[in-house]
Each structure stands twice: as C-alpha cells, then as structure tokens.
C-alpha cells in the first residue's frame, strides 16, 4: 500500500507549502455495492489551483467517486488524501477537517437548501460552524460571499424557492466558498441549468478559480462543459478509468473507443447516428 508514502510526502510538503504537492490524491479507490463494483481501482491527483474533469455516462461510477471524495460514501478499499493527509475516522474533528478542505456542489441546487431558511441564513450556517465569530462578522462575510458570486443582498433575503436555478447554484457556490475549501467537487453542477445560465456559472467558476486558487473536480457527462472548465480529465466507464490526460488532447484525439463514442454522440451538423451505433457495438464486443 503506498498510502503511507503519500502521507509522508504530504506532511513534509505541507510544512514547506510547495506548489508541486497535490492537494488531493486518490489511490486505488474501490467501491462495491454488494456484488456490483461501482468504482474499480481509480487513482488520480489534483494540483492546487488545477481543474480535473471526470467524464462518463450515467452508471460509469463518476458520481460515486465524487460522493466518496465528499465523505458521503465509504470506499471499500483505497484512500483519499487531502493535503497529503489520508482521510479516516468519523470523529467530529476528522469530519470538520475534511469539510474545511473539501466541499461539494450538487446537481440540483434547489434541494441542497433547507426550504424554510433564507439563502443568507443558509450561507451563514457553515460559517458559524467553521469560523466562530460575532453575528456582525458573519453578516459581513455573507454579504461578501453573495457579492463574490454575483447575488444581490435581496436575493440573500429570499427563500430558495423564490430564486431561479442559476441564482440557487450561485448561492450553493457561495455557501461552499464560505468554508474556504481547497477543493470543490462539482457533481453535474450545471447539468440542470439552461444553456445560457450554464455559461454564466461556468464563467463564474473560472473566475473564482483564478481569484482564489481553489481546485475543482468537475464531474460531468457534458464534454463541451468539461472542455471549458477543466485542464485535465479522466474518462470513466464501468467504474474504471479508460483514458486520462489533458482535456484538450483527449477531446481532439481520443485514444479509447469509449471516448470516441462519447465524442461522436454529441449532436453536430455532421452527426452520423450510424457511426454512434457502430461505435457502441464495437465497444460492447470488447
């Protein structure tokens, strides 16, 4: 098991604050649900300020991977290390340390808020947990966060149901940023939004990454979105990583037939449905 090595490197690098140490490293992650293997030997690293895409169809294990990163699922085996420190234990301390480093944005921003709380109160809640301070300080921080994601104070005083999908996703991002995590996991974060709103959120995410140096793990089935928001990507199928590399390179010259299939499946002027079917058949025969 090389998890021990990772801890050691992380420890020494942490002290020095070197730029070359990964902020997130995932090693031989496996998740089984009964006999079904959802995630099969997945490993990757994420540098500070980098953005990694996890691409695949539904059922490819990408969401399960994201949920393991967020601590919502326990891996059957393998490790997740944040800042070189392997995540383990369920103590309150361990939970808070994990949360302070990694946050997650869900696909449906509406249901990720308590429907009875105003947006501002929902954003203030994790602040109270992670950054104890006076009511006034939290209020100021909430205003700052709302401003950072382009929401008005009035939007902050609204209930989740009174905001649009895009506004809610901005609010969800603000809430996550309040904890100042090093890594943000975005699970299909723009999939539920209109295309025009998607672009706005993606621009916002891009800008936030440049401003704060936060890292992204961007889980998506949408290759156009991944192309815009990520530097490197991994392609998952049946729980395994079938291709990895620079996002641009993967999309230009896919090596694995599955990646090619995904690319061919995007509707375009010269879209050839027969080829998609052929690709699929060839893939299933492998």
């Amino acid at each position, binding site marked *: 098991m090389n998890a021990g090595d990772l801890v050691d490197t992380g420890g020494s690098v942490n002290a020095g604050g070197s730029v070359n140490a990964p902020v997130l490293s995932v090693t031989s992650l496996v998740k089984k649900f009964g006999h079904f293997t959802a995630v099969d030997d997945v490993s990757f690293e994420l540098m500070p300020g980098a953005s990694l895409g996890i691409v695949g169809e539904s059922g490819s294990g990408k969401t399960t991977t994201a949920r393991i990163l967020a601590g919502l699922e326990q891996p059957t085996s393998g490790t997740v290390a944040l800042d070189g420190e392997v995540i383990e234990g369920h103590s309150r301390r361990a939970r808070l340390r994990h949360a302070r480093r990694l946050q997650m944005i869900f696909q449906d921003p509406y249901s*990720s808020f308590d429907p009875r709380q105003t947006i501002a109160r929902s954003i203030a809640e994790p602040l109270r947990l992670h950054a104890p301070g006076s009511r006034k300080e939290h209020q100021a921080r909430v205003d700052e966060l709302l401003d950072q994601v382009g929401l008005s104070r009035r939007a902050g005083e609204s209930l989740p149901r009174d905001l649009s999908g895009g506004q809610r996703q901005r609010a969800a991002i603000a*809430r996550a940023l309040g904890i100042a995590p090093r890594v943000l996991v975005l699970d299909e974060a723009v999939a539920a939004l209109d295309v025009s709103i998607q672009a706005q959120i993606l621009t916002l995410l891009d800008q936030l990454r440049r401003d704060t140096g936060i890292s992204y793990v961007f889980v998506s089935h949408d290759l156009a979105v991944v192309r815009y928001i990520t530097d490197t990507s991994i392609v998952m199928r049946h729980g395994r990583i079938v291709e990895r590399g620079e996002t641009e390179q993967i999309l230009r010259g896919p090596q694995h037939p599955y990646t090619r299939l995904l690319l061919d499946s995007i509707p375009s002027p010269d879209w050839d449905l027969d080829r998609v079917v052929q690709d699929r058949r060839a893939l299933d025969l492998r």
Partner: protein
Amino acid sequence: MTLTIPALRARSAKRRRRRPLIVSLAVAFLILVAAMGLLAPVLAPHSPDATSLLNSLLPPGAEGHWLGTDSTGRDVLSRIMYGARLSLLAPLGVVLLSGLLGTAIGLLAARAGGWADAVLSRGMDIVFAFPSMLLAMLVVAVFGPGLTAPICALAVSYTPFVGRVVRSVAIQEGTRPYMESYRVMGFGELWVTLRHLLPNVVPVLVAQSTLAFGYALVDLAALSYLGLGVRPPDADWGSMISQARSAILQGEPWSGLLPGLVVLLTVVSVNVLGEHIGGSIGRKQSEGA
C-alpha cells in the same frame, strides 16, 4: 372601479385561506370550555362541593341553578366549570408526555435506522396493539387511584400514535438532498436532526397531538367514570356522569347528560381542529413540492 379591484383581490385571497365554519365553531367552543375552567372561581355561581339535600336533582332552569343540581344538591353548572380544569389538564399532560416521548423515539428510529429502528418500531407496534384502557387500569391497580398513574399509563400507550408518524415524516425528510449537503459541510447528525428535521416534524406533531388529546379526554373520563381516576369530591366530567348513575335510573337524567354532552362536544371540537390542522399540512406539502 379602482376601489373595487383591491377589494376583489383581498376577497379572493381570503377565499383561498378561508377556514370552514365548523372549525371556527370548534375553536370557539374549546376557548369557551378552557375559559370556563380557568375562570371557574369567578364565574361559578356556587361552590362545586356545596351540598344541599333539599335542592337535590333539580332539573335545568331551576331557580338559582341554571343547569340543575345532582343527587346531593350540588350545582351542575359549577361542577362542570370546575370539572373542566381536571378534565382538560389531565389529557394535556398525556399529550405533552406522549408528544415528547413519541418525538424522541420517532426521530431516533428514523435517524438511527437498522436494528435500532427495527427494535423501536416493533416496540411501538406492541404498545400500539395493547388496549390503552387496559394498560391504564392495570397501572391504577398497581399504584392506586389518583390522576398521576392513569396520565402516565395513557401517555405511554399514546406514544406510538405520535412516534410512528414522526418516524415516517423524519425518514421522508431525511432523504432530501439538503441533508447530505449539511453532512458534507461537516455538521453532526444530532445538529442536522434538531435544527433541520425537527421543524419539519412539528406540524404533524401538532395535528397528531390534537387528535390524541380528544382520545385521552374520553379515556380519562371513562376511567373517572369507573372510579379509577379523579377521587371524590373533586369535580371531573367523567366522575359527574358516574355519580349520576342512580339518578338516571330514577328518571332524572340531567345531572349525567349535561357533563356527557360537554365531553362529547369537546372531543368533537378537538377532532375537527385536529383534522383541519392535519389537512392543511397535507395541502401545504402538496403545494410546496
């Protein structure tokens, strides 16, 4: 024209939230009964315990005794007023206790899941299947008459009535994605349960407790009727009916019928109110989804 438009709008808004007449009547009656009990020393025309054998079994409308007197000549109206205190407070105690127990057990079962849920749920099923009156009578047999024992016994037998509903609502709410988002933010299970689950459970709890109040009132009146609850000479609707037994056989039913009528109206009012609260929660939930 400009004047009528806001008026129309106000009226249509009112129509949407209109409260049925029966509910208003029920609430009015309950307020009346509660006020009677609260202000009994001021309002009651006679002492509830003052006997007068010369004036026994007067029919309603008699001079100085609006609702007549019982077999020992005590004023029925005064006794109904003083009786409201015990007859309302005792079921209130039952409801508060069972609400507390039921909420705690329901939330615990819902959040813990697994074998803890199985044990708690089966436990509630067993208590639920056990007749509440029988349990109350057993407890009285062990601890002797008085109100404390039957209140505790009924509270235990009504706990599943509250606990099962709390559990199912908590399970439903617990699967909502925002619960997970709180876990990712590092919040503990207890905090999420009390801060975000409990507020969702409260409306159902109120509806269920209101219904339980009605049942408890009837059960306690029955216990008092059997001589297992309130001890004489304390006034209580159930014991008033009980003490009127011989008078009823003599063809003087009033001193028993009137407290019986008050019990009936109170329970019907409480049930109407409970159904209304439960119904409006259902409506709100279907709107909110």
